[in-house]
């Protein structure tokens, strides 16, 4: 068994920022990620991010990723890539398949779970046909692997992910036949919708998918308007000639490892579903197990980075038995600055509720 002070599972923005802060405080850090390159979602985000100067606004995700990697390298954190953490056992022990070959157990003083999120599927007739995939999967294929998963596409869901990925599909040379949204209005920002509208992509509201049809792969999508009760109006169906159907129906925290560690959860719809209870230091109900980023509630890369920093500092405090209150306060202020607006405000309230529920549970 190997021993480390801090094991971080997931090298996305949250995990990398936590590693940077912990390394600055001289903590012995090991980062584990199943991919061959660290960065999590950042390297497929070729668009500029919203935000303010403190949140690296106007910079593309991919550029933010490069900056974080540079810093992690400079601070000499250990990184195991192509390695999957499959379990958390007993007293903070992580089970890892290292480089797809060797089963290794690592004992740590603290474990940070920053494993990100998983896309919500929706099911309809033919949804298992090749050519139906998550919007995030399509984004990985076009922006990271540079493979076109199709030539003519339908995007399901007009939230920010659906709208942004539809735009990136246009950039990759895919013809986007339509974006459909079951709600009577789009859930994403108008500026993102306007970007694809200008290229002539129609966005159909109050519309759902009935069927993906085709023999061995997707050859068409059957779409249909819905009434006020979201029931399909069957006599008005329409068939679209597509070979790719992307689903952007939201994300939920990737909770397996947290479950296995024995963490307690609460249901928070504005944060993507079941979320591990955690306190203001990102520590879960299990001593020494921390959580950050999309894993602690679906938000954004900017908040994932700040939460990662917060966890990194708090973990260093715990291991070194010291206090860095000023630094934590700065990070918390930036988090609060970011959790505003239509989307942010609801998440801020959910986060406050989580903290409260955490203390109710931990006290009992």
């Amino acid at each position: 068994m190997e021993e480390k002070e801090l094991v971080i599972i997931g090298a996305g923005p949250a995990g990398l920022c936590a590693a940077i802060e912990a390394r600055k405080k001289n903590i012995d850090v090991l980062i584990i990620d199943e991919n061959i390159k660290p960065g999590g979602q950042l390297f497929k985000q070729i668009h500029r991010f919203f935000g303010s100067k403190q949140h690296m606004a106007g910079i593309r995700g991919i550029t933010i990723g490069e900056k974080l990697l540079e810093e992690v390298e400079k601070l000499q954190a250990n990184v195991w890539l192509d390695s999957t953490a499959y379990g958390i056992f007993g007293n903070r022990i992580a089970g890892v398949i290292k480089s797809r070959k060797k089963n290794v157990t690592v004992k740590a003083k603290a474990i940070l779970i920053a494993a990100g999120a998983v896309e919500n599927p929706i099911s309809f007739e033919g949804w298992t046909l090749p050519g139906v995939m998550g919007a995030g999967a399509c984004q990985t294929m076009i922006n990271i692997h540079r493979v076109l998963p199709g030539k003519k596409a339908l995007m399901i869901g007009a939230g920010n992910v659906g709208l942004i990925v539809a735009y990136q599909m246009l950039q990759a040379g895919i013809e986007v036949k339509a974006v459909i949204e079951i709600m009577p209005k789009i859930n994403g920002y108008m500026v993102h919708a306007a970007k694809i509208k200008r290229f002539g992509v129609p966005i159909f509201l109050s519309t759902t998918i009935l069927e993906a049809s085709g023999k061995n792969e997707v050859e068409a999508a059957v779409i249909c308007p819905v009434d006020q009760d979201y029931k399909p109006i069957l006599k008005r169906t329409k068939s679209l000639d597509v070979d790719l159907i992307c689903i952007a129906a939201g994300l939920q925290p990737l909770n397996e490892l947290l479950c296995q560690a024995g963490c307690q959860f609460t249901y928070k719809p504005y944060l993507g579903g079941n979320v591990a209870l955690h306190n203001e230091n990102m520590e879960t109900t299990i001593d020494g197990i921390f959580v950050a980023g999309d894993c602690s509630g679906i938000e954004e890369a900017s908040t994932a980075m700040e939460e990662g920093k917060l966890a990194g500092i708090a973990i260093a405090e715990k291991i070194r038995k010291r206090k860095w209150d000023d630094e934590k306060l700065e990070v918390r202020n930036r988090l609060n600055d970011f959790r505003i607006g239509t989307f942010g405000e609801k998440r801020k309230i959910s986060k406050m509720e989580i903290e409260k529920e955490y203390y109710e549970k931990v006290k009992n």
Partner: protein
Amino acid sequence: MKKLRIDETLYIKTPGFLSEQRIRKGPVAIIECTQDIPCNPCETICPRKAIKIGLPITNPPEIDEAKCSGCGLCVLWCPGLAIFVLNYNFDKIRASLTIPYEMLPLPGKNEKIKCLDRNGKYVCKGKIEKVTPPKKNSRTSLITFSFQKKYFNTVRGFKK
């Protein structure tokens, strides 16, 4: 099926949209961003402090018609691709629009194009006047194209 439509009148009278009087005077930024997005690079990047968002940063951007020179820096940096520079006086009969462009291949100077409205519908013919390829690693190009003056509030994109 009900389509989302972006109406021509949607942005008129919003804080990022100037009076027709100012537009007729010469190059100026047109900002089509009206929701409470936590975002403000347009405000920080403007060398003339012509865009105001203030606090909280979810305020929609407001443009000061006296200060903006139409330099186009904010167009390049806006993550929403929501800012354009409109030059109503490009020449006697034509206006020009400068837009952020993230598609390849880039169009060539003097290329004939089809001008589109906010919904991607054909409006009129136009011509590429200037192509500014990405500087350093910004990865955004600026394209300036011209079209008949009367469509200044209609045209927002183009296709080849």
